[in-house]
């Protein structure tokens, strides 16, 4: 049993040889280490053709004409097609959900029809026997554009003088939400200090190392479509492909093999991917599309890009009286389908102030259309923004009243014994550990020593800063996320386990693997619950034909939801195995146990191995008592019902140095303490945290999709769009608190986005701390040298 988990209800897992809480290497890693993975870009099928898209160079333009005659005649070309023709096979969609009230969008086609709405939107596609020949021909597709006025500036998107991108919608406002909780005006009035600043968050993107890739294979004989796709939600894709290609869901099989990075970017299905499915149906042969890196930057979902005014009112004693925000974000010309582009803004507005007791909160968020690439859910979804605003304001409030940043947090974080409780925005917290986490963090980082070092170094002209950020994270979402809004995106997951004829366990789960360790997590739980070694468990996932129906791996839900389903399925199988053992050994099921693949009796006597039990059950059932039927397969499903989300919490700290001559920030060290409830595999949790932190650090310092005033993405390549490299990243120390959710027997909550949630906020706070001798406050990311030097008045 892990420290701090006494009485956590883990009886069935607290067994000899349990893998719960143990570091076990992921079973699926060896093939990846030898280059034997199979990513979609590696898939090659007989008669496969390659798709290359012709994409709009304009942010907004009418497509006057498309001449494909030259391209069609080029070597190796099978077909060239524009949007209107493809629209006969792939119907358009509108990315709205009914629970995001008022959210509107316009019909979007797989390939643009008549009009391109962002630079990079596909306007035609070439299919050829090789990618290079398709690329050659794509250069000869002659498209005549009539440029239209483009809506680029988020701040002016709602001005009456700004053109409306979709006139039928009336304006460029996609979504608006307001919250007014407590007594905001009075709270500001009684505050001794009020801080009022504008936060700016750069647009950035996921940059999965493997670009988006798809192979669609319509088998006209079977009348079935097989889609090979690196995706986090195969059953969602099955539904969407079937719906818009006029197929039954049973006619669509989605296979997700190895996925080269996902981070939410691959939880979506993209217009060009839908086009590839349609093209396969039209051509009656497999079609492959692998995005090149320029296409990735121009068409993979972008995220963040918020401008948010934030106010905080604080009393001299450190009491935070009130938060207020007015948030504005531009999401591109369409709301993404089917998960929409309003979820990030919605998360921002509900998460502000989340860790604190402050009951007074007023917020508004507005989501506007613009002629840039589409924005949607990317790792952390709203958390990094809500955390940066909240924690930025808290630090500024502390500065205003001359209080230490740790102290103001201690005085305002929700007490660890105050749960369950609700937030002013209606979030339900079951059990969090803000104070214990902060205490642990302060000890890990030796906060007092660092402050002393900082003071000493300042005398030498070295400017170091400490930044702290507490956060909450939405995990284990139930139907509240998508299902209630009408999307056919499952919030439940299923796991099937069976004992095979040689005594090994086969396990099929509806969650997917993108490297976070879904397979390992599942195998650890199943092996522990049944009583076999992990080597005896094989996990099958990422195949809609061969797994139970379920949501997939996103929103930090895999372990908390599918892990619980795995536990319950394994417990049923264990019971069935023991019943079979009792039948064979002429006893009662309760008389036996399974330890390391062996049936043992109450005296600990080894009686029969599982492979022998399986042999009898499958090949000599005639020797069993009359009427006894062994059921060596069990399936269970699970979805949280009591809480809409299982909130987790944590706190991060950054220690960095700002070079006030060059404006460069050097990250020296980063610490995280987080609480995801029961930990199945500490190593996997820590690595999720570290990976998320570094994505947050990238957002804080480097990553930025820079559009010019005409809507051109000016840095759509890996040389100009900076992602964190090894030399720039610090070591990251991770610690844990453990507050299991009591809603499940497993007690696990999610951990996938905790790192991304708070990292940028820490860095911003640390930079401002470092620059405090200069009286400079920066509330914009990425914190480029130019931004810092400008703030310092040096350029």
């Amino acid at each position, binding site marked *: 049993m892990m420290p701090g988990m006494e009485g956590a209800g883990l009886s069935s897992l607290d067994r000899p040889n349990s893998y719960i809480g143990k570091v076990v290497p992921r079973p699926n890693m060896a093939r990846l280490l030898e*280059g034997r993975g199979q990513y979609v870009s590696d898939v090659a099928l007989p008669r496969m053709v390659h798709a290359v898209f012709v994409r709009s160079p304009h942010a907004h333009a009418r497509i006057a004409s498309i001449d494909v005659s030259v391209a069609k005649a080029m070597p190796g070309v099978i077909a060239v097609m524009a949007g209107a023709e493809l629209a006969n096979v792939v119907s358009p969609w509108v990315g709205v959900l009914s629970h995001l009230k008022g959210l509107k969008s316009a019909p979007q086609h797989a390939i643009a029809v008549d009009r391109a709405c962002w630079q990079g939107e596909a306007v035609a596609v070439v299919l050829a026997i090789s990618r290079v020949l398709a690329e050659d021909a794509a250069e000869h597709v002659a498209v005549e554009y009539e440029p239209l006025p483009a809506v680029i500036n988020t701040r002016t998107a709602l001005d009456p003088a700004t053109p409306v991108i979709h006139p039928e919608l009336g304006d460029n406002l996609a979504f608006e939400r307001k919250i007014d909780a407590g007594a905001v005006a009075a709270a500001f009035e009684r505050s001794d200090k009020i801080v009022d600043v504008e936060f700016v968050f750069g647009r950035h993107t996921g940059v999965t190392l493997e670009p988006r890739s798809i192979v669609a294979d319509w088998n006209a004989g079977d009348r079935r479509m097989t889609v090979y796709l690196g995706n986090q939600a195969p059953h969602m894709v099955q539904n969407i492909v079937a719906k818009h290609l006029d197929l039954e869901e049973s006619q669509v099989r989605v296979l997700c093999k190895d996925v080269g990075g996902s981070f939410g970017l691959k939880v979506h299905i993209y217009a060009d991917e839908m086009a590839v499915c349609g093209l396969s149906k039209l051509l009656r042969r497999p079609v492959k599309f692998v995005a090149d890196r320029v296409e990735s930057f121009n068409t993979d979902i972008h995220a963040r890009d918020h401008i948010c005014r934030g106010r905080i009112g604080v009393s001299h004693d450190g009491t935070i009286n009130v938060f207020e925000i007015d948030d504005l974000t531009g999401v591109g010309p369409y709301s993404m389908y089917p998960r929409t582009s309003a979820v990030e803004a919605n998360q921002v507005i509900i998460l502000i102030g989340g860790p604190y007791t402050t009951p007074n909160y007023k917020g508004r968020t507005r989501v506007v259309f613009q002629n840039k690439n589409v924005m949607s859910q990317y790792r952390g979804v709203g958390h990094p923004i809500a955390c940066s605003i909240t924690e930025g304001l808290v630090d500024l409030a502390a500065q205003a009243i001359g209080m230490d940043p740790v102290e103001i947090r201690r005085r305002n974080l929700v007490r660890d014994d105050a749960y369950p409780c609700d937030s002013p925005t209606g979030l339900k917290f079951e059990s969090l550990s803000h104070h214990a986490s902060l205490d642990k963090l302060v000890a890990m980082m030796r906060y007092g020593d660092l402050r002393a070092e900082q003071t000493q170094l300042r005398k030498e002209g070295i400017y170091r800063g400490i930044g702290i950020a507490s956060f909450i994270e939405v995990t284990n979402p139930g139907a509240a996320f998508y299902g209630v809004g009408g999307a056919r995106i499952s919030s439940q997951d299923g796991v099937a386990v069976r004992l095979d004829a040689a005594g090994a366990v086969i396990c099929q789960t509806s969650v997917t693997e993108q490297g976070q360790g879904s397979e390992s997590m599942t195998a650890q739980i199943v092996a522990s619950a049944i009583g076999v070694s992990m080597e005896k468990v094989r996990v099958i996932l990422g195949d809609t034909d061969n797994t139970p129906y379920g949501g997939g791996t996103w929103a930090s839900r895999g372990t908390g939801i599918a892990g619980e389903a795995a536990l319950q399925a394994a417990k049923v199988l264990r019971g069935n195995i023991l019943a079979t053992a009792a039948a064979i050994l002429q006893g009662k099921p309760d008389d036996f146990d399974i330890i390391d693949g062996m049936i043992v009796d109450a005296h600990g006597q080894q009686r029969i191995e599982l492979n022998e039990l399986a042999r009898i059950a499958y090949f000599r059932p005639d020797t069993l008592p009359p009427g006894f039927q062994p059921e060596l397969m069990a399936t269970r499903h699970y979805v949280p019902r009591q809480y809409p989300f299982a909130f987790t919490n944590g706190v991060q700290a950054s220690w960095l140095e700002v070079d006030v001559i060059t404006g460069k920030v050097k990250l020296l060290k980063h610490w995280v303490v987080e609480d995801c409830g029961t930990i199945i595999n500490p190593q996997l949790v820590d690595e999720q945290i570290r*990976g998320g932190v570094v994505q947050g650090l990238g957002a804080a310092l480097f990553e930025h999709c820079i559009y010019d005033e005409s809507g051109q993405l000016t840095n759509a390549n*890996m040389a100009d769009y900076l992602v964190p490299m090894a030399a720039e990243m610090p070591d990251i120390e991770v610690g844990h608190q453990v507050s299991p959710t009591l809603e499940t027997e497993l007690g696990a909550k999610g951990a996938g986005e905790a790192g991304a949630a708070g990292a940028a906020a820490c860095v911003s706070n640390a930079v401002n701390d470092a620059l405090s001798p200069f009286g400079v406050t920066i509330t914009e990311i990425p914190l480029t040298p130019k931004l810092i030097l400008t703030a310092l008045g040096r350029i």
Partner: protein
Amino acid sequence: MIAPVPITLIVNQERIEAMVPPRLNLADFLRDHLSLTGTHVGCEHGVCGACTVRVNGDIVRSCLMLAIQAENATVETIEGLSDSGEIADLQMAFHQRNALQCGFCTPAMLMAAQDLLLINSEPSRDQIREHLSGNYCRCTGYHAIVDAIESTVRARLERAE
């Protein structure tokens, strides 16, 4: 398009004779012509490092080199290094330390790590980080990769004593 030209080279100790278009890059040749899909293509312009292979003993980005430039060269890919056992200890260290998640950058990361250890048997953490800076990883945050290489360094030094 210019007609294919013949090339002869050694790939993973196997003599290869092939006809290749002059514009074909080495990464595509390895992946599409020889089915050596362990070499990954991430950016196709020499930044991400995912396509790193060894040519005549040096690590190169195979997306920046034409296949015809490999005429008479000795090329080693992750498949070759795995089969020969040259980096078995590094692979084990990566496995034990969970120094990969999606695995897409991993073959090239191993190539770069082994390259460092061949020229510097006792690199510091900073030197490891510096040497890996041509190889992007979006999953791990690098910390675990540095740990795994560091532990391989220690193990190799102990073996050498």
